[in-house]
């Protein structure tokens, strides 16, 4: 329906959400931005506008190391959960015996907090955790020290395991819903016209669910890039991710370091935005190349 005589209805409809998000979403970002530019009179910082804090953050080697680790902890689980989640969705696209139970099991990790995933990973993979105990009982290791350090190490295996625990099921669910949506019968058509199972999968089934795959992987990356509590709890003291570094500066006893923390936040936001925009751009170009859009 065209807007025509409904301008009042449109404005009234959008006004409440717009007002609330301006105050609670844009507002906080502007406060952080102002502080990062040197406007923080309550901490005795009043040098607005200055880029000194950005220069300080971007010039430090600690920032560059944290950025590399943030990207590493974000990208690796995104790739693994996308591949595994899509494979699972494809394997389960036609019901088989027991698939209902498996789907029910996969729904649980999606609806519990990431902190539940952290507890699960600690219980299993800590040096005194269950897997180490089973290995000890089997005689494979002689003490807790022989178990490889999965948690609190720069390798970040503990952090990434938590992400995978939540995100493989999440990707599976988003992609499964797309597979079950309109057009599920095209595979059958392709097969009955003589396409081999692999050709039907590659040329008919997969292209139809690419938007769902992009949606899931985009959300997964956006989450992994900015999460604080999981790398804080299960990552190394140093090096760790940008959000952990930002929070450390925010909580520093010296309050005049807070503008530096705000510069960290703005940089995290900007990098995340650039990566996501670039990803969407690549995807759109691919869609155009295929003649849709």
């Amino acid at each position, binding site marked *: 329906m065209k807007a025509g005589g409904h301008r009042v209805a449109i404005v009234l409809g959008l006004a409440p959400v717009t007002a609330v998000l301006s105050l609670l979403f844009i507002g906080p970002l502007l406060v952080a931005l102002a502080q990062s530019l040197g406007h923080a009179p309550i901490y005795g910082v009043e040098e607005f506008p200055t880029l000194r804090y950005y220069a300080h953050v971007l010039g430090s080697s600690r920032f560059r190391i944290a950025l590399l680790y943030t990207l590493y902890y974000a990208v690796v689980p995104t790739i693994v959960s996308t591949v595994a989640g899509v494979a699972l969705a494809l394997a389960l696209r036609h019901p088989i015996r027991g698939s209902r139970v498996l789907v029910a099991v996969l729904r649980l990790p999606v609806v519990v907090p990431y902190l539940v995933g952290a507890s*699960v990973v600690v219980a299993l993979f800590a040096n005194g955790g269950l897997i180490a105990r089973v290995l000890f009982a089997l005689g494979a290791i002689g003490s807790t020290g022989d178990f490889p350090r999965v948690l609190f190490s720069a390798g970040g295996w503990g952090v990434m395991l938590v992400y995978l625990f939540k995100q493989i099921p999440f990707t599976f669910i988003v992609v499964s819903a797309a597979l079950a949506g309109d057009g599920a019968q095209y595979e059958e058509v392709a097969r009955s016209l003589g396409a081999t199972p692999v050709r039907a999968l590659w040329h008919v089934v997969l292209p139809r669910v690419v938007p769902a795959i992009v949606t899931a992987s985009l959300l997964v990356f956006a989450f992994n890039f900015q999460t604080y509590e999981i790398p804080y709890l299960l990552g190394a003291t140093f090096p760790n991710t940008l959000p952990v570094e930002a929070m450390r500066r925010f909580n520093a006893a010296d309050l005049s370091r807070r503008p530096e923390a705000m510069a960290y936040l703005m940089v995290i936001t900007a990098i995340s935005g650039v990566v996501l925009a670039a990803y969407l751009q690549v995807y759109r170009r691919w869609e155009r190349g295929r003649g849709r859009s």
Partner: protein
Amino acid sequence: MGAGEGTIVIGARSRGRGLYSTSRGVRVALWIVFALFSFPFVPLVVASFAFRWHWPAVVPTEWLWTARDASTVPVGWAYLFSRVSRLGPAFANTTLIGVAVASLAVALALPAARVIARYDFRGKSFFEFVFLMPVIVPQISIGIGTLLLFLRLGLVRTHVGVILAHLVPTLPYALRIMTAVFQNLDHGYEEVAQTLGAGRMQRFVRVVLPLVLPGVATAGLFAFLISSNVFLLTFLVSGGRIPTLPTMLFSHIESGAPLDATTAGLVVIVSLPGIAFLLLTDRLTGQRLSLASLGAPVQPAVGGRR
């Protein structure tokens, strides 16, 4: 772009056909996946009933019920259900905040979703883009910014502050789900009611509302789920004064040992809102509702056919 359709899958279940056979290898792989995702909860449930489970025991050496008289301080479930643990307030806070956030999110999203679904207007895609931003913008930036803003407004360490903070991550979901509901709505009924002489208010209350009610309930449940899972925003805005289930679990993981009975019991409690969500959405008005709506907010940006 066809945003909206397919975000809520109703009665979608592919039919089994002899045409497809799943190979033995795939079946074995699926059983391994089943084991990987169902096993992790077992040690935690066992641990929650353990009194003594030190290295290197693979199973607890003493259970809660055999040690009840021996222990001077309550452990595990006994501790969690005692006054000292503060689990009661945390559970009450999570529920109260979740219900308030869900009601507010639905009330705010309903008029906006109706407008987005019904009308084409200039700036529509801009609004849709802005409404999805809170899902994409780093939570830590919003969280610390909110803390600084709320310090000035006197909202830090208040329930109202936490509820307002939770609106930001929940509104995009409420909006997308409700927009899909209004897009699937058949306007014929409303027109029939109009020709039969129903006024604007009467049409909304007697015709539109009953039709969208299942969708409204769905949006509310998603908002409740997200609110009950949020950690960082609560942690920052509550200043440690308003314990919720996630913030309580955070402090226990921070200080507890692996397979600690209290943390294990708490994990079970913290999972309850999610389990309740799964049970409720399965029952809801006979519709099979897809968890895939958790991907819905970014779909206007991704677009494409679904």
